[in-house]
């Protein structure tokens, strides 16, 4: 694994504040009674970066976001915004804004009043804040709906209003808490593109919480993968996908097959667990000969899951473990076995990724 700047491994010396950092967490922990939601997390997010916090539910990613926003405070450690210690500072005194998972639009205000809320509580005169709100609504292409109430909007429109409302204060950092979770697939993909281009145009640091690895991979500059209150790996999307460091990251980010050390020893001669991504595995006929330099094993095809562009072949090995191979639709190479039949799996030695754990 290459060293990623700004990430301190566990047990390292206390990190020093960095001058270009928008956000820094220094050895931050948050305990809820006996439960440790965040366990000594250190993390530096660079100004202008699109940063994703990725992990399953309960992994600590949302707690991390709440600490940055100021809705919650760490039991240990410090939170720095632009080099300033804000550990005990309430949310209304932080130059950070949030897009909430449920949008949290004020139901008793019009769209324009919702967007103008930030300037309003900062004492901007009515006319100026209305103008400002319309500008922001223009940015998210919703100015025609300025006088509707939130109840009259669709999910995607609410999402845009929440975005405009959060951006109107011109925050240094925008926090997004699973903002696309409630939208359908097509809209979600559309909003991903829109969010990414908005972030690049405005040059604001985005911190994006999600449990959807596809979302994180497609938008983020860097991703911190959370597990049990700790950062399992912090890397660029490509590095996470191609070079997962642990079995957890391999499974969660790459949906990769993880082969335990025992089986790895039999297949490769090295007793260390490795990951192999489904698209790297070739399915051959039961009697086909292995290509030179390839690793291979035999198994029984259990079923084929059809996904449109690709299909996933689940193959049970004699030791009971299951490997998934992906085949591009229309590919003519390999076996034409049907479930229950014997197949041979093969992959190149270069495509397997040795894992640090397991």
């Amino acid at each position, binding site marked *: 694994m290459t060293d990623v700047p700004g990430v301190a491994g566990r047990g390292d010396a206390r990190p020093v504040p960095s001058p270009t950092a928008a956000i820094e967490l220094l050895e931050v922990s948050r305990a809820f009674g006996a439960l440790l939601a965040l366990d000594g997390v250190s993390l530096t997010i660079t100004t202008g970066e699109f940063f994703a916090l990725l992990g399953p539910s309960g992994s600590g990613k949302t707690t991390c976001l709440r600490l940055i926003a100021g809705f919650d405070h760490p039991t240990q450690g410090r939170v720095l915004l632009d080099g300033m210690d804000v550990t005990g500072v309430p949310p209304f005194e932080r130059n950070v804004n949030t897009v909430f998972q449920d949008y*949290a639009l004020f139901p008793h205000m019009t769209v324009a009043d919702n967007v103008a809320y930030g300037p309003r*509580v900062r004492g901007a005169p009515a006319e100026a804040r209305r103008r400002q709100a319309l500008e922001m609504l223009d940015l998210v292409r919703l100015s025609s709906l300025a006088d509707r109430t939130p109840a009259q909007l669709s999910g995607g429109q609410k999402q845009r209003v929440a975005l405009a409302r959060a951006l109107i204060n011109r925050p240094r950092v925008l926090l997004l808490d699973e903002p696309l979770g409630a939208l359908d697939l097509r809209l979600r993909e559309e909003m991903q593109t829109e969010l990414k281009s908005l972030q690049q145009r405005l040059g604001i640091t985005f911190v994006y919480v999600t449990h959807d690895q596809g979302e994180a991979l497609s938008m983020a500059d860097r991703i911190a993968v959370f597990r049990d209150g700790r950062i399992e790996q912090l890397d660029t999307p490509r590095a996470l996908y191609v070079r997962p460091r642990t079995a957890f990251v391999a499974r969660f980010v790459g949906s990769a097959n993880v082969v335990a050390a025992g089986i790895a020893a039999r297949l490769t001669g090295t007793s260390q667990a490795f990951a192999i991504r489904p698209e790297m595995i070739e399915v051959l006929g039961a009697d086909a000969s292995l290509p030179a330099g390839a690793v291979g094993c035999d198994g029984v095809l259990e079923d084929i899951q059809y996904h449109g562009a690709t299909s996933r072949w689940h193959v049970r090995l004699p030791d009971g473990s299951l490997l998934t191979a992906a085949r591009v639709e229309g590919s003519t190479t390999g076996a034409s076995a049907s479930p229950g039949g014997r197949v041979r799996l093969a992959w190149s030695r270069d495509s397997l990724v040795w894992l640090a754990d397991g």
Partner: protein
Amino acid sequence: MTAFRGLSSFLYGRRGFYLALLLLPPLLWLGIVYLGSLLALLLQSFYAIDEFTARIVPTLTLATYYQLLSHPANVDIILRTLAMAVAVTLAAAVVAFPVANYMARYAGPRMKALFYVGVMMPMWTSYLVKVYAWRLVLAKQGVFSWFVDQLGMTPALEQALATPVIGGPSLASSYLGMFVVFVYMWLPFMILPLAAALERVPESLLQASADLGASPRQTFRHVILPLALPGLAAGSVFTFSLTLGDYIIPSVVGAPGYFIGMMVYQQQGTAGNLPLAAAFSVVPILLIGAYLALAKRLGAFDAL
């Protein structure tokens, strides 16, 4: 069994008939017994009583309303009742808000249950017992003045009782004491709808407000209060109308001045002037109508 199933499938296909069957008894009750007697009451108020025979003359006239509004004593009664209802409503809202807010937002499940029971428990006791108990509590040598004395605040109490109009020889015989009892009696009716309204305000709205730069005070003013307004309106309709119509509290606790409810009671009973009693009871209906119209104009129901 088969007959029953036949009935079930017969009703299942005929939604309208089924609903009509369910609604008919309560609608009959509401329409005839309830609204009918209300209309009869309204009609009575447009009759007048013959001064000599003391009989009701069943011809439509505004004479009774003229009698009601031309006597300064009657107008005094209306204004006194109205002032008390407004004061009680405001005080109940101020006292109820922190309690309701705590119940809705901060209390854990056990504490919340405890508070709900605590708020409703006084309603399990007889109303009359409570009113008479309050008379003793507020009496000159009562528990309340003893307690105030323990706190060393007797001069403050004496000062309050020396205030013209609301004061009196003791709390039990002053409007101030009556006010205290009214607020006590109707407080649950304010707390419960208010807590229900506050419970419907998602936590994320308050976080969003703080996130956008609002101080806790601004969040209260711009988010919590407007969203609690329907609950506040519902609660205040209770406290307002219950105070306007009550005749027991003013006759047991407080100064000797009459209230609307007492006049209704007296006019239909001892005085035997049913039309005037009816006219008096129309006043609270009109006042509440006006109050609701005002609340609607102020946007109290917008968030519903």
